[in-house]
């Protein structure tokens, strides 16, 4: 009885040691993101927002405030203004004079993306959103129009 237990225990422990030794010689699976290696994301990954422009440089956003209405957490604030016909900011009648997104409130649901009639606001792939100051979490229109290049590899969807 006792010797059998001892044999089985010894075998189990030897097996356990073998398993760990096998893993010792495998390359680590750690991805040193975000500062040393890029992370793999799917194309539809919802990260930090950005505002798109048309190819001629005009802003897509027409200041309709549908995103503000669609936002479940009230993270978006839009202030619209009439376009100057001589020097339009956007192709529509109006444009967004102020466009702010509070990332502390945002839940990255993507409803703003869906609500937008002109596909102006889009969730990008940038995910390094840490900051030191509370006010830095509020993205202004400048931040949204000039998004940082995300350090990611977009992998194909299966």
């Amino acid at each position, binding site marked *: 009885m*006792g010797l059998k*237990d*001892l044999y089985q225990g010894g075998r189990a*422990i030897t097996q*356990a*040691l073998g*398993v*760990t*030794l096998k*893993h*010792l010689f*495998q*390359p*680590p*699976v*750690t991805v*040193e993101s975000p500062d040393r290696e890029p992370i793999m994301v799917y194309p539809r990954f919802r990260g930090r927002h950005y505002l798109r422009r048309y190819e001629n440089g005009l802003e897509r956003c027409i200041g309709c405030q549908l995103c503000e209405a669609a936002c479940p957490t009230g993270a978006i604030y839009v202030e619209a203004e009439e376009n100057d016909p001589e020097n339009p900011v956007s192709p529509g009648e109006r444009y967004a004079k102020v466009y702010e997104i509070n990332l502390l409130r945002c839940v990255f649901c993507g409803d703003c993306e869906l609500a937008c009639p002109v596909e102006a606001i889009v969730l990008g792939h940038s995910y390094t959103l840490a900051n030191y100051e509370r006010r830095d979490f509020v993205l202004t229109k400048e931040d949204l129009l000039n998004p940082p290049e995300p350090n990611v590899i977009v992998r194909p969807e299966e």
Partner: protein
Amino acid sequence: MDWVGLILVPFIKGIVILLILLTGTAYLTLFERKLIARFQVRLGPNRAGPYGILQPLADAVKLFLKEEVIPGHVNKPVYLLAPMLAMIPALALFAVVPLGPDIELFGRRIPLHMGDINVGLLYIMAIASVGTYGVMLAGWASNNNYSLLGAMRTSAQMISYELPMGVFIASLLLITGTMSVVQIVENPRPLWAWIWLWLGFPFYFITVLAETNRAPFDLPETENELIAGYQTEYGGFKFAIFYISEYLHMLTSSAVVATLFFGGWRGPFAEQFPLLGIVYLALKTVFVLFLFVWVRASVPRVRYDQLMSFGWKYLLPLSLVYLAITAVLVVMLG
């Protein structure tokens, strides 16, 4: 009277060994973290300096800069005494380990060990047991349920596993015929003795794991049931002392194991170049430390009743059988 030989040389030797031991201990924590990370297919610490080599320094600075808190409900003198009692035996254990053959320095013959005691093996057993007091007193002085439970477990564990350890060491004594650690390394051993010792090595190693409170026998500080056991009420530098002494104990035990079972500083050309002996001893110690970490990465912590039943029902009878067979072998082959 030879003042230089009696006071100055041991003093310098002691300081050098202390520095080596404490630096080694600091880097042992990094070694363990790195190695255990690789066992788990992770990278381990790599931010403080290249490959994380400054990590021990960062840890030390962090612990030293912490506020020294003495909780109001502790037994203050004993509470302060306990970390020292945990650390000093771990350091003193190394005194009998020979680092290499004697060297000639400034026309003086200097043996590379602190002291060649003719009861070296007994010294190792005795000093290793004193380390238990640090843990026990820490648990007692903390006046805290978890600490006391951890301390109680420690004492039970140490008493249970010191017995088979002593019997295994007695078997070694039968083979070597001397208790002096220096003599054990220097006396040549026949081949059958090496093979027989290595057969018993796994069991001796289990007792060493229990003696140093390492996984899978780290019951005194089971963080999931006892928070941190006897360390619960300690913070800052006093915690650091416990932490260091645990790793120090591991380091010195590895050196002792390397000395008793793997021939210490012996190796090719070690007789001609004494410093090579230190390298051999270091390599062998690192190998034993690797075993420590390997076991920790592989085996889950044992339950308290399993610990007790394994110690008394299996390990002790096994060690006695081993002793008996050793005696027969010594008479027949030796």
